[in-house]
């Protein structure tokens, strides 16, 4: 409104001002139409560092896992497992998504990373995932073979596992007129199947924001 008013009232001999304003504005609105290209991470090392969304990316996953697994490495339950000479059976159950983002595939990646870490630690024997899925299907019924946290004791007994490693991700998600911030809280825990006692638990945080 103000812009239009100023144009009307100014010296009409000055053709350049309204036209220049029009042109500048026009090019401002039509800029940014560059051609896209594919880039290889190995040739451009910084490619992973930029945040692309408020979801979780590789860097977030590595940061959260590193914090939690470093803590697990030093925990009493890990000492117990080491003393067992790698014979202790551990199942890795799905991490639950309690966030405002559809991060199921990222959670699956976290699960695989944690599983790999446990296997490489040589402190425990990790139950194979497809065996776990079979047991879950047996207990829940093949039509609805979805992991149910309420039935972990049953799963554990069927699998012969003594402990299971699991976790959850929660968020605090806030939105204002010009920003959205998602704070992730990533919890991991080890539960003794026989007693249901939590033998280890730790948390890590990551915040993502769009503004």
């Amino acid at each position, binding site marked *: 409104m103000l812009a239009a*008013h100023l144009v009307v*009232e100014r010296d*009409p*001999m000055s053709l350049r001002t*309204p036209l220049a304003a*029009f042109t500048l504005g026009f090019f401002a609105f039509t800029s940014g139409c560059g051609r896209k290209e594919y880039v290889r991470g190995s040739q451009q090392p910084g490619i992973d560092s930029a945040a692309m*969304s408020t979801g979780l990316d590789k860097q977030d996953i590595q940061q959260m896992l590193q914090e939690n697994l470093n803590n697990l490495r030093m925990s009493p339950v890990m000492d117990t497992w080491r003393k067992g000479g790698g014979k202790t059976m551990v199942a890795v159950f799905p991490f639950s998504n309690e966030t405002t983002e*559809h991060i199921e595939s990222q959670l699956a990646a976290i699960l695989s990373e944690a599983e790999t870490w446990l296997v490489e630690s040589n402190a425990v024997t990790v139950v194979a995932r497809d065996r776990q899925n079979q047991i879950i299907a047996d207990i829940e019924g093949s039509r609805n073979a979805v992991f149910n946290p309420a039935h972990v004791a049953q799963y554990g007994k069927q699998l012969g596992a003594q402990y299971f490693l699991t976790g959850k991700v929660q968020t605090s998600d*806030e939105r*204002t007129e010009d920003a959205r911030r998602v704070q992730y809280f990533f919890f991991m825990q080890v539960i003794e199947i026989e007693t249901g006692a939590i033998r280890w638990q730790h948390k890590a945080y990551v915040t993502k924001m769009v503004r």
Partner: protein
Amino acid sequence: MKRHRLLFGGALLFVVASTLTGCGGHELRTIQARSALDAGQPRQAIEHINHQLGVDGDKDLPSDLTGDNALLVLDRGTVQQSLTQFKLSEQDFQASDKAIDMLDLAHNAGDSIGEYMFSGSSSRYVAPPYEKLLINTLNMINYLETGDLSGAKVEARRLAVIQRYIRDELKEANNSILGLGGFLAGFVYEKSGDADEALRWYDDALSFAGYGALSAAVRELAPRAGYKSPRIAKALAEEAAAASDDGADVICVVGYGRVPHKIPKRIPIGLALTLVADAIEPTNRRAADRLAAKGLVTWINYPTLAPDQGGYSVPTCTVDGKSIPMTEAVNVSAEVTAQWRKIEGKIILSAITRLVTRYAVGEGIEKVGGKGPLALLASLGTQATLTALDTPDTRSWETLPARVAIGRVRIAAGKHTVAAAARGVTRTQSIDVKRGGWATVSLQALR
């Protein structure tokens, strides 16, 4: 020298005009899809939308979702849902949810300058509150249809975030979309075993009329939950038939008709000035009055709402031939119209401002060119060109159902047939529910 300036101005406008030529309004991009939906051909509608998006198939997303393509993906998401392509609809709603959010967050003063100087459609799209709420609400239906409570809970949480934003930042507490959202989110949490969260959502739903079907659910949840409110207490006090404990719950969701979409309208400046007489600034009023008196190229282009469709339909839903009582959960068309009424004056004002701007540019050319016929012609040509380029902002989520009805019933465990119908569109779905289980069957009759 003056002649050079005039030529420079004319050339500049030619460049601008030729760059913008072909930029029809959004409603032109979707007219074929809407026509296909009117004809009861949702498959064809998707093909038209895919063509506009420049993608090969229903599962492909455009490489660029930063502009109005986000709206087309939203349109496609609803049509995919009507074709029971729930996974693809999930993908479309998820992608457009993020894109619409980014567009909304990126909205800045530059958009207002574009809106007031060039064209109503030059600014970034800002989704109205009902659209923001419906993205997550309709996507919840997709996850419920596929039995994915975890995914549905993500949508419920996203709905809660946007609900808080609309209530606290936009100061709109009573958007009736929240009634439907609350009903579905409550169901999601009820079936996830979270009684408190379920009651909190049902409490939201009960603040809107027409959710009598919730009484039985509230009665079952209340002993397991600590959440209390006057509406929950009232629901507990109502008479409700005791539901069988060994049954399963089925909810039926029927969307029907289509919301009014935006169409361009052209009115004389004199009429526009009458419509916004109380709101226009005196300086613009004087400039506009001068234009009205001049009587040349003095039309304004602005968008308005087309009629909605399907207002008088009666949706039905049956389980094994027995009717489920259906309640109108939300009148989306009424929300669209109410929202439009709030901004219509501003839209007309910005159209008048653009007209004044065009006049100023034309007048500048005329003054520089002198009193010769060439200058007059250039001035008129400039104004006419800019008028032609002024595309009314007709962007909106056009494939939304005009109304959504909802029903809930408890049935015996086992195999059943659910049939939903509205506006000549039917869906028959076999379900097999366990004791304590649940199922959701939806129909989108978008015609």
